[in-house]
């Protein structure tokens, strides 16, 4: 029983972290209508930018993650402007495929600078806390807090700012948004910056839990994408629900599966959703 409770607790933490990049990919999808798989390498880049800030410049993890956000957001905007935007004119499927190519290229940029080695953040060593027979590390709690703050910021931005509302308007009805004078290009740039920035935060949060290498984002992309699809691609609350479901399901799968098979959970979730309820758990609601 305690084992299950521990797995659920781990799953909630993993799911909350997963929700951050899942919100990124789903928000970009909501506005631009294609799944941008470059999320995977841009998450890795965010993790490495945070690594440099943390290890080379001595910033604490919570500050370094802002550096990860900014760099990932910047790479997201620039790569979209140069690579994906011209291709989008030839169709969204072409853009989705191009984003796979883009992610391979960016992954190798990381490899060029940092090599293939595993790297770890410079974190204070701390003993796990114990309560009711469950264990939780202080770093896990900090990661959970960072993920929750990032999510709260997204919800406040979408609900209360002029740009957040404009973003939801473009996602809701692009033609009407154009008539009303909302500049779709500006909205696209901002959603790319914020969405990819969130991917960068996600990459670093995953790395803080374990270690990072050029495939950090790639290994997580299936779970991230599964979370977004499960909740309803294009729905921000859906991405949160989807991520928690995937996070908990992946942990609970350890009861019956060997750890290497854990990623099967994401595949199974995508298959089930696309077969039974293609619109996802919440259906598409822009925020």
């Amino acid at each position: 029983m305690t084992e299950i409770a521990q797995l659920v607790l781990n799953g909630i933490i993993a799911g909350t972290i997963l929700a951050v990049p899942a919100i990124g990919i789903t928000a970009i999808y909501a506005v631009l209508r294609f799944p941008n798989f470059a999320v995977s390498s841009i998450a890795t880049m965010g993790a490495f930018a945070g690594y440099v800030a943390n290890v080379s410049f001595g910033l604490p993890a919570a500050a370094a993650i802002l550096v990860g956000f900014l760099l990932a957001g910047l790479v997201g905007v620039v790569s979209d402007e140069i690579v994906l935007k011209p291709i989008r004119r030839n169709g969204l499927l072409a853009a989705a495929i191009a984003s796979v190519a883009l992610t391979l290229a960016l992954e190798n940029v990381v490899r060029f600078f940092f090599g293939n080695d595993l790297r770890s953040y410079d974190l204070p060593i701390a003993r796990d806390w114990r309560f009711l027979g469950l264990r939780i590390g202080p770093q896990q709690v900090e990661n959970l807090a960072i993920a929750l703050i990032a999510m709260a910021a997204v919800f406040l931005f979408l609900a209360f700012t002029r740009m957040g509302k404009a973003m939801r308007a473009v996602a809701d009805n692009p033609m009407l948004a154009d008539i009303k004078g909302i500049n779709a290009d500006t909205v696209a740039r901002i959603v790319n910056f914020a969405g990819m920035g969130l991917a960068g935060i996600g990459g670093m949060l995953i790395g803080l839990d374990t270690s990072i290498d050029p495939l950090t984002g790639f290994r997580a992309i299936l779970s991230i994408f599964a979370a977004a699809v499960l909740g309803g691609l294009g729905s921000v609350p859906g991405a949160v629900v989807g991520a928690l479901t995937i996070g908990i399901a992946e942990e609970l799968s350890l009861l019956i599966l060997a750890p290497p098979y854990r990623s099967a959970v994401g595949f199974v979730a995508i298959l089930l959703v696309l077969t039974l309820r293609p619109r996802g758990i919440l259906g598409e609601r822009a925020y």
Partner: protein
Amino acid sequence: MGLLSVAGVVAGYSAADEILKGVDLDVEAGEIVAIIGPNGAGKSTLLKTVAGLLRPKAGTIALGGQRIDGRPAREISTLGLAFVPQEANVFARMSVAENLEMGGYVDPRGAKHKIAALLERFPMLAEKRRQAARTLSGGQRQILAMAMALMVEPRILLLDEPSAGLSPVAAEQLFATIRAINREGVAIAMVEQNAHEALAIAHRAFILVDGRNSRSGAGAALAADPEVKRLFLGA
């Protein structure tokens, strides 16, 4: 020189097709102009072209003497022309209040005041201000769409079949609202299937047939014309 003058406009959805084959239209400040005609005559295409959603291949469009043809919709909307499309004319997943805010996106100054004034004017919208627009009935949605357009304090409102799909009672209310908006000095150009109602409230009307002007004149005169009666009013 009228408020809106359209001369010899040719337009369509692709390079090959010409739905409008040289259409003229003029709207004076403060008047209601109805555009009627059979299906496929190009009425909606005309409004979309004026609003900047389609680029005319030939002809000129001027608003208050200033050429607007070929300019993008979002620029035209800042010049005092507001277009209300027939369908998908509200942001379905956003609240009524947010829809109004987005209606005035180009000019956020004083938006709070304008929203408050519109909610006071349309109590139904005030009641549902926090609800998502998709929960509104067809008639309520049309009212919201027009209120959104009023956020920019337009000189002219283009309405694409505002009464389409509405019950007779809802359509009646809608036409009353249109007339009230017009009395405040906003010119209205509206495409209508419901030619009866449209001619009843319009000062003037244009009849389009197959992408060309057929007849035009005072609304009452056209409504009394035997041929118009036979063709469009089912008499």
